[in-house]
């Protein structure tokens, strides 16, 4: 259904716009998302703070807009990396077959059987300084989360592309191309990959949703993006502490996550039922 695809793309475009204009909007409203203002602690929504203020008096609207950058950035980076890695490994397994196929697919089975969330918690608690990375930088946090999510995220795409590639490799036009003397590299690039675009697109759209949710869960648990950098997840964690003082503060970040995930699901749905 075309309407689902359009609605989903519209939602995602709005969120992308919010992420892009975050610094501009902060300028227009005249609010710094990082500057505490202790006189405005838990301020209710007002013309001065359109969505209210948090426990340090920071403006919630500008923090929400900056949070969109983190969420969409992590979501898109994870989906892109997982799709590229998953497609490469899936096609490799289907094309080479034999022990390469066996090893990759057993690895995939093993990763799928594991309890993902507890392992993510364990991995997220690792100290980046011991691996030689700077600690506490937002970019390091994002990189760490994307790496951890890709570690699990490639599996779904790889299984999907392996199955698709096996079907294509057994088809007559591939045999015809081989009989014409096409090199294996060109065969994979020109004849196998184009046939995998549709399923990978659907899987990527769902991967964006999964990554946005996983990032917000990790940040909510205090293991993802570290304050003062705002992310929807750590904003919700702060809001849960303040359910008595400012119950409304819990509304906005969750709504933003919901819209992002719904947008991705609608796009995936729309792509899979043409």
């Amino acid at each position, binding site marked *: 259904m075309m309407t689902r695809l359009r609605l989903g793309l519209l939602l995602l475009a709005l969120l992308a716009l919010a992420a892009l204009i975050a610094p501009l909007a902060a300028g227009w409203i005249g609010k710094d998302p990082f500057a505490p203002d202790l006189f405005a602690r838990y301020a209710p929504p007002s013309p001065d703070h359109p969505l209210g203020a948090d426990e340090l008096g920071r403006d919630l609207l500008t923090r929400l807009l900056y949070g969109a950058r983190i969420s969409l950035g992590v979501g898109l980076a994870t989906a892109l990396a997982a799709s590229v890695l998953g497609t490469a490994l899936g096609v490799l397994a289907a094309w080479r077959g034999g022990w390469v196929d066996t090893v990759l697919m057993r690895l995939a089975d*093993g990763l799928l*059987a*594991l*309890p*993902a*969330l*507890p*392992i993510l*918690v*364990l*991995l997220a*608690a*690792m*100290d980046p*300084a*011991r*691996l030689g990375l700077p600690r506490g930088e937002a970019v390091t946090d994002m990189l760490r989360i994307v790496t951890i999510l890709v570690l699990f995220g490639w599996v779904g795409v790889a299984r999907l592309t392996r199955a698709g590639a096996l079907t294509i490799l057994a088809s007559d036009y591939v045999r015809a191309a081989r009989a014409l003397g096409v090199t294996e590299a060109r065969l994979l690039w020109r004849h196998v990959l184009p046939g995998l675009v549709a399923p990978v697109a659907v899987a990527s759209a769902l991967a964006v*949703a999964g990554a946005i*949710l996983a990032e*917000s*869960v990790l940040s*909510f*648990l*205090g293991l993802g993006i570290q304050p003062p950098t705002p992310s929807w997840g750590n904003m*919700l964690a702060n*809001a*849960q502490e303040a*359910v*008595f003082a400012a*119950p409304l503060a*819990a*509304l906005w*970040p*969750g709504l933003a*996550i*919901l*819209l992002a*995930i*719904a947008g991705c*699901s*609608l796009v995936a749905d729309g792509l899979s039922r043409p």
Partner: protein
Amino acid sequence: MLRLAALRLPQIALTLALLSLAAWFAIGLMPGDPVSLALFSDPRLTPEDIARLRALHSLDQPMLERYLAWAGGVLRGEFGYSRLFAQPVPAVLWPALRSTLVLVGAAVALAAAAGVALGGLAALRPRAAPLVDAATLLAQAVPSFWLGILLIILFAVRLGWLPAGGAPEPGGSVLPFLVLPVATIAFGQMAAYARHAAAALTAELARPHITSARARGGSEARVLWRHALPNAAVPLLTLLALDAGGLVSGALVTETVFARPGMGKLLYDAVMGNDYNLALLALLLVALVTMLATLAADLAQRWLDPRLDA
């Protein structure tokens, strides 16, 4: 069926062994070790004391050797102690596992019942289908920890009907503490069951044996209950098989939001509190339960549909 189990059990053992090794090294990369924590709480410790403590707890040995010593102990049934709770690890793990299984079991039962009801509604009344569609889309997109917070704000803070979280006093009723967490998990899970039930029931209702049952004068309720649902249950069990593991480990978020003392919360506290031994054993127990649940669901599916065993 026996063949499947015989094939799967060694796989499970191998996965656990590899996971424990990987997790051992991941924990080694976490900031701080027990001795540096001891130093933190007692600054009078001298460097000699530190060296003595490290040697006493074998922290000066290479990681692989420490792993082998630990794994040997676990295989002999020596699970060691939890530093955080100052108790033997099994005494901490069993109550937590029971609490999580109760929570997840109740949530799955509720989600399956509500999902099949919604799916049945969509299959029987095509006019309600878009509404059910929209409801499932919403249920799938709502982040569970956000839903949990909203439920706490509404039912615990505003209305004061239910506790915001935690566990009952010894001897108190468990039920009030279960309502909100169960609703939180079940709401998200319901969506998948509703979608699959709607698809399976719609396909099933179009088949000849349904037309024949209707022609014989069976009531709609009887047709749905006796003729359509048993066949439609097989894909739902597949879904349960795929989800069973994720549910046990996914309870972590809900348990954290509601401060419920379950496996997820325990694991999180152990990782945060630098309690190596407890974190590792809790992770392995969750993985074991996850894989056994998936195996059990696979076996149940083969029992329902013997064609799969061929």
